[in-house]
């Protein structure tokens, strides 16, 4: 027997609280450079993956619910109040001990703490706050902490939690007010957007006044379920864009809907992960490639399943191509299908020294399968005739996504829904 007492969470509780947290897509530990101030841990600005599970996802943070005992009845959620599932609740000490014990062994980069609406929104938020405050002040933990916000909790509690967290998130889950009303009747757009806005303005003030310490150094994120409700991709991407622009979110995550519950209000069929994949591609175009949602897809339209969104955009804008790789500015190179930010960087560096040919590009491992139709290198063009390009791109894509689809494994729907707020 150890001579001191450690509060070790039971394996059973850990399992229940992990299983109910695992469908939240977010796992990132990036964006915070918090320093170790005399205790344990620090931030890793680029983020760090510690392990990978057989589903191909990374483990960066200890992702866990404080409690899965919920008073809300969101239709799509496995933890909704009328679901017949085992319930568990952890104590703040159990979460703190588990976090530092795993951190010390370098299993995790920090904690991602969430909760069902346990008893009342304020009670649930208080428990989260109590835990992260304890972790920071009593345990001297300076590693990464992501805390989920509980809708309808008092603003004071939310702002207090933000003093200790690196990142906070309120999950919107459904992309419109009507869908929320239908599927998550206790939530409203306002109950989610208001606290996000409050956090954003508190963060702005904190930064403007250059105060000491930290206030959400890694900002806010959110998550949307795709395919549980009828919104088109164009509508979703416009919402995403406004969240990035007006709310300055760091990330919007998408989770493709898989039916767990039979409910006349919910679709019978899963949304398919290809749609989720396309939304992420479009999301990247918004954040890193200088595209606007309006360029990618019209408001009531959906993204093409056959072509990635950049290819689809390029085919609609063939008058802009081909571009000469030795002269095109960086922002133009970034719009060439198949050229990502790394290839674009390599090209702009290398061409300072020599006039690049197709041979050079190949050597530099710039992928030319798609790009060759849209570029010239030292004046030479190796693409197909304009009317053949679409077919070639679609054929190439089909062989790729064919593989992806089987990887995605569309077997009988597991309870794959985000069990979270």
């Amino acid at each position, binding site marked *: *027997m*150890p001579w001191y007492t*450690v509060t*070790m*969470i039971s*394996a059973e509780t*850990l*399992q229940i609280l*992990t*299983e109910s947290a*695992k*469908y939240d897509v977010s796992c990132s530990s990036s964006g915070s450079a918090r320093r*170790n101030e005399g205790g*344990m*841990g*620090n931030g*890793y600005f*680029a983020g*760090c*993956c*510690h*392990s*990978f*599970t*057989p*589903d*191909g*996802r*990374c*483990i*960066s943070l*200890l*992702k866990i619910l404080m409690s899965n005992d919920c008073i809300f009845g969101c239709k799509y959620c496995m933890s909704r109040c009328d679901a017949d599932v085992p319930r568990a609740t952890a104590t703040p000490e159990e979460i703190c001990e*588990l976090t530092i*014990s*795993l951190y*010390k*062994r*370098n*299993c995790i*980069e920090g904690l991602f703490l969430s909760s069902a609406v346990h008893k009342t929104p304020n009670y649930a938020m208080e428990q989260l706050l109590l835990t992260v405050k304890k972790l920071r002040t009593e345990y001297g933990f300076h*590693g990464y902490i992501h805390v989920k916000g509980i809708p309808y909790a008092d603003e004071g509690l939310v702002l207090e939690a933000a003093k200790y967290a690196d990142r906070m998130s309120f999950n919107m889950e459904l992309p419109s007010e009507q869908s929320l009303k239908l599927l998550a009747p206790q939530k409203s757009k306002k109950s989610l957007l208001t606290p996000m806005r409050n956090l954003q303005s508190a963060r702005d003030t904190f930064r403007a006044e250059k105060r000491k310490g930290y206030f959400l150094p890694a900002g806010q994120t959110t998550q949307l379920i795709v395919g549980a409700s009828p919104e088109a991709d164009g509508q979703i991407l416009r919402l995403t864009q406004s969240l990035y622009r007006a709310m300055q979110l760091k990330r919007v995550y998408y989770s493709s809907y898989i039916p767990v519950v039979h409910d006349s209000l919910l679709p019978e069929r899963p949304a398919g992960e290809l749609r989720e994949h396309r939304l992420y591609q479009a999301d990247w175009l918004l954040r890193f490639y200088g595209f606007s949602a309006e360029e990618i897809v019209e408001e009531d339209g959906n993204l093409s399943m056959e072509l990635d969104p950049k290819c689809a955009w390029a085919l609609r804008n063939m008058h802009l191509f081909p571009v000469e790789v030795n002269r095109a500015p960086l922002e133009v190179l970034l719009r060439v299908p198949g050229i990502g930010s790394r290839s674009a960087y*390599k090209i702009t*560096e*290398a061409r*300072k*020294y*020599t006039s*690049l040919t197709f041979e*050079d590009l190949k*050597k*530099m491992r710039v992928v030319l399968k798609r790009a060759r139709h849209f570029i010239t290198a030292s004046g030479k063009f190796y693409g197909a005739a304009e009317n053949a390009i679409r077919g070639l791109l679609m054929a190439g894509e089909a062989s790729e996504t064919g593989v992806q689809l089987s*990887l*995605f*494994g569309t*077997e*009988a*729907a*597991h309870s*794959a829904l985000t069990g979270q707020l």
Partner: protein
Amino acid sequence: MIYFYDGSKEAFLTAFCTAFPDADAVLTSGSSQLGIGQEAVFIKADPARAKRAERRLLSFDPDCMRDLTTILRSGNPVKDMIAFRYLRLIALKKRPVRGMLADDAVIDAVECMRRVSFEIHRFHGFLRFMESASGALYAPISPDNDICDLLVPHFKERLPKYPFVIHDVGRKKAAVYDGCAVFMAPLERAEVLLSADEVGWQKLWKTYYAAVNIPSRERLKQQKGYLPVRYWKFMPEMQ
């Protein structure tokens, strides 16, 4: 001509000077097959010559010695040639060349350095400590590249109050942090008496690992791409 040297930076720079005019030079610090009619010499470190070469190269590119030490840490069997051709290009061009990303020598050097730094980043995540009865932490690793001492600053910053040992099992050496100083030591095998709670926490970690997975979305190929099987050996959750 084949130029053998002992793998040290000083001997490399000496060999670099000797081999520089030879267009067909082969530099190696490992074993190399002699071809028919090929001659071989063993180059011993000449500190004065090495220093002169270093100063000259630094005058062309102030960061080139950092690049050299990174490449020499690589587990790539032809790392010596990669370093030779890269530094030779710097000497010929008389300026930094790392932006010449369409040149073969630069492509190889940049790729080689990228692999070393990427493995350091990977081990920031994949390394696992176990807690010994004394409270000190012990992590066995078996990296492709010679990076064990380069992992220390990261963990020292995070866990300043915990003495730790990072043991490169393949190269039979260890980086040791005793709570204030860091040093390297040869280490063949280590016997670790585990703390009373160690097995319990490892079990909980495995419970977490199993519970956070979504079995219906199995993507083993992707998992192995991100976490190659050769790194699994010292990770409790992969056993």
